[in-house]
């Protein structure tokens, strides 16, 4: 097969000439981008730029949309995600995603966290696991009293952290976070940001965000997507201080919403 490479050299995720269309609308056009292991990559860009679509391409969620057409390749650890032997359920267990809107199940806090592990046949102590993960997202001290409370009763910030804990419960290798702070106030945003900061040690993270400063604060690499095209991609500091593309510069200076 291919020439042996060290594991670190193979990007965790890679899109190669990826095009995604919803009906006649092109959401992503010929995007090529790779995500190195253990890094935080931010996707920034105007609304409708393709951030969500790219995230969803990474864990095969786009194919659930009727009328979607994908060309190009997405690789996970070098393996073609759309290969015949690849099971999308397995893909989604290893590449966890947190959606733009917190979508909790109308059940208890505990049941939400336990959902993923149960689905994958986890045999350990769920109670212990729940405690560990809720602690990891800084929620344990707030909800320890009553894990059987309906999850919907939590505040927006707590709900978002619960969503992250629920995804962490899959023990994924990669975390896809879609605008995790877009619905939150500054205090809750700060909590999520410090959470993401603490998660970077254990996970590769791809973060879609509207917050330019958030991208600058949290990520090693930043990609600027607009109109479905990858305009520019590089180390966050370089991209923010000396963007190569005029369009990136306009966006960063706030001339494009």
């Amino acid at each position: 097969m291919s020439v042996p490479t060290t594991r670190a050299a193979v990007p965790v995720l890679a899109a190669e000439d990826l095009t995604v269309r919803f009906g006649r609308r092109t959401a992503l056009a010929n995007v090529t981008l790779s995500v190195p292991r253990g890094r935080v990559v931010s996707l920034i860009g105007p609304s409708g730029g393709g951030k969500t679509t790219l995230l969803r391409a990474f864990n095969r969620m786009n194919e659930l949309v009727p009328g979607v057409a994908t060309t190009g390749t997405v690789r996970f650890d070098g393996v073609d995600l759309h290969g015949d032997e690849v099971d999308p359920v397995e893909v989604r267990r290893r590449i966890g995603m947190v959606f733009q809107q917190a979508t909790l199940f109308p059940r208890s806090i505990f049941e939400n966290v336990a959902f993923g592990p149960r689905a994958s046949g986890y045999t350990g102590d769920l109670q212990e696991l729940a405690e560990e993960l809720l602690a990891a997202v800084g929620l344990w001290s707030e909800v320890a009293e009553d894990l059987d409370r309906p999850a919907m009763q939590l505040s927006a910030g707590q709900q978002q952290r619960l969503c992250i804990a629920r995804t962490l419960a899959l023990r994924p290798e990669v975390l896809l976070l879609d605008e995790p702070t877009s619905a939150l106030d500054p205090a809750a945003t700060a909590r999520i940001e410090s959470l993401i900061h603490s998660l970077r040690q254990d996970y590769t993270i791809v973060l879609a965000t509207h917050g330019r400063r958030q991208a600058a604060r949290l990520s090693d690499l930043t990609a600027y997507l607009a109109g479905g095209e990858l305009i520019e991609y590089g180390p966050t500091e370089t991209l923010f201080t000396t963007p190569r593309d005029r369009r990136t510069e306009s966006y960063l200076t706030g001339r494009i919403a």
Partner: protein
Amino acid sequence: MTAAGISVTRRAPRRLADRLARPAFLACTVLAAATLVAVAGVLGVETVRFFGTVSPVRFFTEVDWTPFAEEPRFGVLPLLAATAQITAGAAFFAVPAGLMTAVYMEHYAGVRTERVLAGVTGLLAAVPTVVLGYFALTFVTPLLRALWPGTEAFNALSACLAVGLMILPTVIVFTRNALRSVPAALMETGLALGAGRGRVVARVMVPAAAPGIGAAVFLAMARAAGETMIVTLAAGNQAQLTWSPLEGLRTLTAYIAQSSLGDAPSGTVQYGAFFAVSAVLFAVTWGLHATGRFLMSRRSRGGLG
């Protein structure tokens, strides 16, 4: 054309329509309400008069319904039990089938399959009950008799199957509505958490729709309890307290249909019995319907904790 020009040309006819609409709708509402009051009034008055002759205790505890015997007996239990049996039996067939069909249509079927199934459901809903009753009598019953030779020519099971077929579209349509009111994002979330579709359906989508599905069941049962033609044709008209599904029986509705043919002169106790039975039927269907509507109103709360 200016905005003012548009409003001037449109103002006159719209005003006329507005002026007519109010009283027209009001008249319809009043007419419907008046009809309901009249029905309830007649039912109430005649039922009270009947209970002046026959004690309500005996009416609800005796097990013989023989209003035209020399020594008439007015024990409504056989009729009530028969209605319960038909309703439960129909639900027994229609609820699992309807639930599975609705889940399949909402969460598995492609656009074309869904359209075909919706068409078939609509068609089934359009079959007149007299046809279903005839189908039960001439097709289902011979089949049952071939399977279980002891089966009577009029039997409950045949009626249950046909009534089940009749309420199947109700179960399907209301269950689909309930399933559709659950946010689709929950399905995506479940799949994104590494669960298979079946698991998300069983653990998330159906439980979240549970009150609405409960409503579907009760509204369908209300229809089954009020069904007349099928039970008269297929289950016969023998008032007897039996739990054997292979024997004939007589439901509340079957008795009402038969006695309304007019062999009891006005003012007699037999005439009053007709209204008392009608009142019982009304209570049963109203109770089922109200339970269904109550569950429906709980639907918007987004499932159970």
